[in-house]
């Protein structure tokens, strides 16, 4: 199949391109990028007035399959991804069973091969059952082709064990993703510890419970020379610690989620359980530090931490409701609205955070639009506004932190490995 996208504003920070170009795909690859490409193709897309950029690579997604198909499946999750402009994603291992051995990886791969609409990369567990007690066979997981290891949703409390995991990961050249949370310090909290937790009469989660663990894992990464990626950074102190470690040459990268970059704990005064996630929404000061870190390069990646939960798990008392929000279908529009339109960053930087940087961290031929690269491309109407409503989601779950908000930016076409996989049904 060939696809020719004409007259769009091409954003390709990997090749320093920001201008009107035509782009042609043949088979699964990009075959030509030029000011003008004449002739025809199987699919012709007129992208006049639209943004053309590499598909989003979302490093932090919970697809819930196998085990919790009531929340999300690989079919629904990857179709939600298509709608959100996400062409590759890293699936987190906290499924039932956890992705902690070759057999479970093979099982997951079978489902992916059968039903995934986008590229699904696998993140395997650091410890067996994600229990933090015994290491999974990291070398063997690497052989099975996993892209990273993480006990996401939990942190490995045992420092000795985490240190050992990093040593093996360093030897194997495998990325370690750390969910930084000292549960003992988080002390059963449900929102950020501070004035808002006090006003709401809810237990607070201290910033310390995050940054102490960031501090530890940076120290272990420095010693082991492992490649470490810090998941969902939420507070100012973590940003500062990561900045310092980077300056010292530690091989660390970091991500922030759109909800942490754009929302604050102030929105929680109505006890909306769709704003309950872990780590929690923090203060304005933290949000500003995250934004600044994103702009100055301390934070490399925007990732959704897409965490679907059923309405039954959310329409209950705040303290009992599950932690987590969905994000695949809103991360692009939320960041266009909150970071780009507000003037915090430009298109090339946004495309780098959403696509180029995560591709580099995961070591995949994506995130750029050069000849020979994988043909994962999205076409966006950046100025089209839409209201975030429950009924609009493709995801099986509706627990979005942006419900009721108006966002700017709609994906018109999503091309995955050279296939026109999604076309905006509302498009004339």
């Amino acid at each position, binding site marked *: 199949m060939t696809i020719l996208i004409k007259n769009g504003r091409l954003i390709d920070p990997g090749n320093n391109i920001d201008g009107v170009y035509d782009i042609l795909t043949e088979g699964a690859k990009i075959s030509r990028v030029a000011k003008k490409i004449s002739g025809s193709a199987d699919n012709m897309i007129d992208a006049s007035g639209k943004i053309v950029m590499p598909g989003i690579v979302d490093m932090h997604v919970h697809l819930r399959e196998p085990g919790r198909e009531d929340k999300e499946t690989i079919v629904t999750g990857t179709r939600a991804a298509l709608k959100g402009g996400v062409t590759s994603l890293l699936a987190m291992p906290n499924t039932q069973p956890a992705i902690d051995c070759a057999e479970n990886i093979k099982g997951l791969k079978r489902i992916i091969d059968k039903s995934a609409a986008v590229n699904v990369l696998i993140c395997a567990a650091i410890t067996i059952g994600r229990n933090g007690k015994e290491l999974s066979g990291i070398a063997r997981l690497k052989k099975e082709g996993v892209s990273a290891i993480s006990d996401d949703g939990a942190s490995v409390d045992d420092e000795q064990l985490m240190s050992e995991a990093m040593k093996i990961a360093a030897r194997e050249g495998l990325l370690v993703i750390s969910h930084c949370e000292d549960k003992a310090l988080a002390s059963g909290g449900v929102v950020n*510890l*501070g*004035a808002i*937790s*006090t*006003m*709401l*009469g*809810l237990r*607070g989660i201290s910033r310390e419970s995050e940054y102490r663990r960031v501090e530890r894992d940076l120290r272990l990464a420095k010693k082991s020379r492992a490649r470490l990626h810090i998941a969902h950074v939420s507070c100012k102190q973590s940003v500062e610690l990561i900045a310092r470690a980077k300056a010292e040459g530690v091989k660390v990268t970091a991500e922030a989620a759109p909800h942490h970059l754009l929302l604050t704990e102030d929105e929680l*005064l*109505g*006890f909306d359980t769709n704003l309950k996630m872990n780590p929690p929404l923090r203060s304005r000061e933290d949000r500003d530090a995250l934004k600044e870190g994103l702009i100055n390069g301390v934070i490399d990646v925007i990732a959704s931490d897409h965490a679907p939960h059923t309405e*039954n798990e959310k*329409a*209950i*008392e*705040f*303290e*009992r409701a599950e932690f987590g929000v969905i994000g695949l279908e809103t991360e692009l529009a939320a960041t266009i609205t909150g970071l780009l339109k507000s003037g915090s960053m430009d298109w090339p930087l946004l495309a780098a955070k959403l696509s180029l940087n995560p591709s580099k961290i995961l070591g995949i031929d994506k995130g750029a639009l050069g000849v020979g690269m994988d043909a994962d491309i999205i076409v966006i109407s950046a100025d089209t506004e839409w209201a975030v409503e429950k009924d609009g989601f493709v995801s099986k779950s509706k627990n979005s932190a942006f419900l009721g908000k108006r966002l700017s930016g709609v994906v018109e076409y999503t091309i995955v490995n050279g296939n026109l996989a999604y076309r905006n049904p509302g498009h004339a």
Partner: protein
Amino acid sequence: MPVAWTRKDLLGLRELSREEIGLILSTAESFKEVSTREIKKVPALRGRTVVNMFYEPSTRTRVSFEIAAKRLSADVINIASETSSVRKGETLIDTGKNIEALKVDIIVVRHNYSGAAAMLARNLRASVINAGDGWHEHPTQALLDMFTLKEKLGRIEGLNVSIVGDIAHSRVARSNIWGLTKLGARVMVCAPKMLIPAAIEEMGVKATDDIDEALSNADAVNVLRMQFERDGESAFPRQLEYFKKFGITRERLEKAKKDIIVMHPGPLNRGIEIASDIADGGNSVILEQVTNGIAVRMAALFLVAQANENITHDNID
């Protein structure tokens, strides 16, 4: 311009304006007299149904709401559940919708989880009055505290009010802080350091762990119940220690303003947070608080019912 009450629910004092709080207090004033009549009843809520839905054990608040509703001629049903909805399996929203389906006008809810009343209110057309949710708010308690203060001292503005006790876990403290600061009082909270919640100053109060400082300039002190009973037998030495450091005693009050008002939301722990002679003494207004609770709750029931009726009428028009 007189302010109108337009809210279908009373969930907390944080979201209310100074004028709205004033309106509840002045409405309560006009209802107070009803309880002194030989026939203690007015027809204001005749034909309306009020359900008291209590997920935590409570006698005083529940009875106070029940009497308030009956003196307004409403029909009252009490649903008490020692176990929370969690154990019963039905969700709180489902329970609320079932009660609403019985064509109930007002649900008064007491719940062990913060935010429970707000959740119910969002999901129901019936009015919801928060009778205490977790550590969050207990608006009618704070309103009756303020009503009593105003009755005794003629004003709230400019008063120094200290709240002493387990601030961290107290919905009474939070509602009092919102209400008093909105009406222009200066509020100080006093507790052992570990019972002062994070960033409490951002609610517009001063915090101290020195009881003498809290009492030194206070026009009124609101003494909170200390909940040591969860700790069983081992609580006793800590109770004594608490009384030594924070108990409201004659010696301490001698150093305070002579006419300091002593309040307590009840039930009392004599000899733990307050000495018996103080609880029963001339500075105490504890039983007057209980009496005033009826008028304040009559006002709350009346205002939300009226507002909800207007909302419904608007919809029909």
